């Protein structure tokens, strides 16, 4: 029972790190980025190449995966995404789905379609037994890293100057612009950072979620659930939503394996009918 809770929390934390970039881009620019999973995949494959083929230590591979995906995200943002912000939602959906298709086929071409595994150092394999609960070391590490990241994110958004600019831009773009905040630059940085986080999540999650070229399509729905259920106005919303989703998914798979993902989709639809703006959204009109 507690093991399920533990695994669920680890899974949820991972989902949060994967999806929080998406929630910020959606909230900030009202931009539907279905290609977010592609960045996560990029991070995962980056780690696979670094750790498995080039023998870079795992602990070094993770930050490099973060940086590479962040750079990739920033590059794409400046060259491609920037042209699509002002467009209708339909255009955005088409554009990002196109990117997903391209990334899936490109990765298939370069890396092959088989599932990839990251070699995890031996120190992280096995599990601790605490009060009779088995806790996998790797999952503990995930919870630790993701927990720290969440706290750091919250601090950045709440305390720093950049954070207040970001919040101002989310609240009202035009007024923020009028106050002299360079919304475009804020957004570029946030986009790159969010992509980087997705990459890091993909690298960490390769072990648990599995990594193959269809990754962006397979987990797209999970990211979107986190964002729609959690709302886009804060990061606590998506955080709680991802923990909820993680626990529900793991518990659902454990207690009712026949139903599979059906539970998740049902919960999502019920929540969206009940609160179309998300479970934890502020009541402010948007």
């Amino acid at each position, binding site marked *: 029972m507690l093991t399920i809770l533990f695994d669920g929390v680890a899974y949820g934390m991972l989902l949060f790190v994967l999806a929080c970039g998406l929630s910020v881009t*959606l909230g900030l620019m009202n931009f539907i980025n279905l290609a977010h999973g592609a960045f996560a995949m990029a991070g995962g494959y980056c780690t696979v190449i670094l750790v498995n083929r080039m023998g870079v230590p795992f602990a070094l591979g993770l930050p490099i995966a973060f940086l590479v995906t962040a750079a990739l995200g920033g590059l794409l943002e400046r060259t491609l995404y920037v042209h699509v912000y002002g467009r209708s*939602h339909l255009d955005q*959906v088409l554009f990002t789905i196109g990117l*997903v298709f*391209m990334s899936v*086929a490109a990765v298939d071409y370069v890396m092959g379609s088989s599932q990839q595994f990251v070699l995890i150092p031996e120190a992280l394999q096995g599990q601790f037994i605490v009060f009779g609960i088995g806790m996998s070391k790797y999952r503990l590490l995930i919870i630790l890293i993701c927990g720290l990241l969440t706290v750091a994110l919250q601090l950045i958004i709440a305390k720093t100057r950049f954070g207040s600019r970001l919040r101002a831009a989310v609240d009202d773009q035009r007024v923020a612009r009028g106050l002299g905040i360079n919304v475009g630059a804020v957004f570029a940085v946030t986009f790159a950072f969010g992509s980087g986080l997705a990459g890091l999540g993909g690298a960490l999650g390769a072990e648990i979620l599995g990594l193959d070229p269809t990754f962006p399509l397979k987990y797209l729905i999970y990211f979107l659930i986190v964002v729609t259920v959690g709302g886009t106005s804060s990061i606590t919303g998506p955080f709680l939503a991802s923990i909820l989703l993680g626990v529900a998914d793991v518990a659902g798979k454990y207690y009712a394996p026949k139903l599979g993902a*059906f539970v998740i989709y049902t919960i999502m*639809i019920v929540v*969206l009918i009940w609160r179309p703006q998300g479970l934890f959204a502020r009541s402010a009109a948007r």
Partner: protein
Amino acid sequence: MSAMVAATDDVAAFLARRARWSPLEIAFWVFAFATIWLFPGKHLILTETAILALFALSLDLILGYAGIISLGQAAFFGLAGYFSGLVAKYGIIDEPVIALLLSGLVAAALGFVTSFLVLRGSDLTRLMVTLGVALMLGELANRYSNLTGGADGLQGVIVGPIFGMFRFDMFGHTGYVYCLVVLFICFLIARRIVYSPFGLSLRSLKGNPLRASAIGIPVNRRLVAVYTASAGIAGIAGALLTQTTAFCSLDVFSLERSADLLLVLIIGGTGYLYGGLIGAVIYKFLQDWLASLTPQYWQFWIGLVLVVIVLVGRERVNGWVAAVRGSISRRGGRFVRRPAALGGAAPDGK
């Protein structure tokens, strides 16, 4: 009072003028039916094209005319596909046309029920709910594998002869004629819907729902109605696929199917009925050609097409189509005619 009568007459005249068949349209359908004799060796791919065109037509009704973005049109396609497959497999209804109509009704019923979910929320919520419904059905089909065959697909479907007379043959000749006739009938129905006052009110509420409701259009009821109709047509397309291939697999519910459908519609242009049909023809040939060049990676090029279309701008792409249309029909003033010819192809939303 007399002004009002005059206004209604104006509207009636306007609708009648718009609903008139242009020579180009007649030529289109004559050519479509001529393909039965012109390309007898290509009937299998033409069948797929006709089904895709019908499917795209259903999406155009809600996307191009009512402005609902949906990623879950595959839900209706798949449900009706499985329904018609099961009905044929267990010999409940042997006659394909009746099974087809029933499948359409089943899909429309699902459309009616789920339409209430689509009424609420923003574009993103709609995307998620429509996608969620399709995924849920896919998951259900996967779970009840003793009924649906699960990941192996529904096998052993034996479709009886149409009206008890025309048997489906191996080369797909009967299947193609059947699909083409169904496509034409559904097109006529869609055309009737679009050029009716009802269709006009759909356009107005796509433009601005608030103002539409202010002039007395019941927005939600109109959306429910058109969503149901569109689901029915999508269902007929799905049933056609099962009947012509005698097979149905889980990928009828997949996200890729709905996403491809959007691409088809975008290539052809949204908001005029031929968009889906022309898009389907272009898409199928593009796919066929790319798949013969790079069998495994054609998806990459499809993705590239999508990205380029969006970056270039859909209006501009549609503008070229309209320009070609204008020059073919040789009525002059091609660029002036463009907005009238396309209507709803103007940028939707902000």
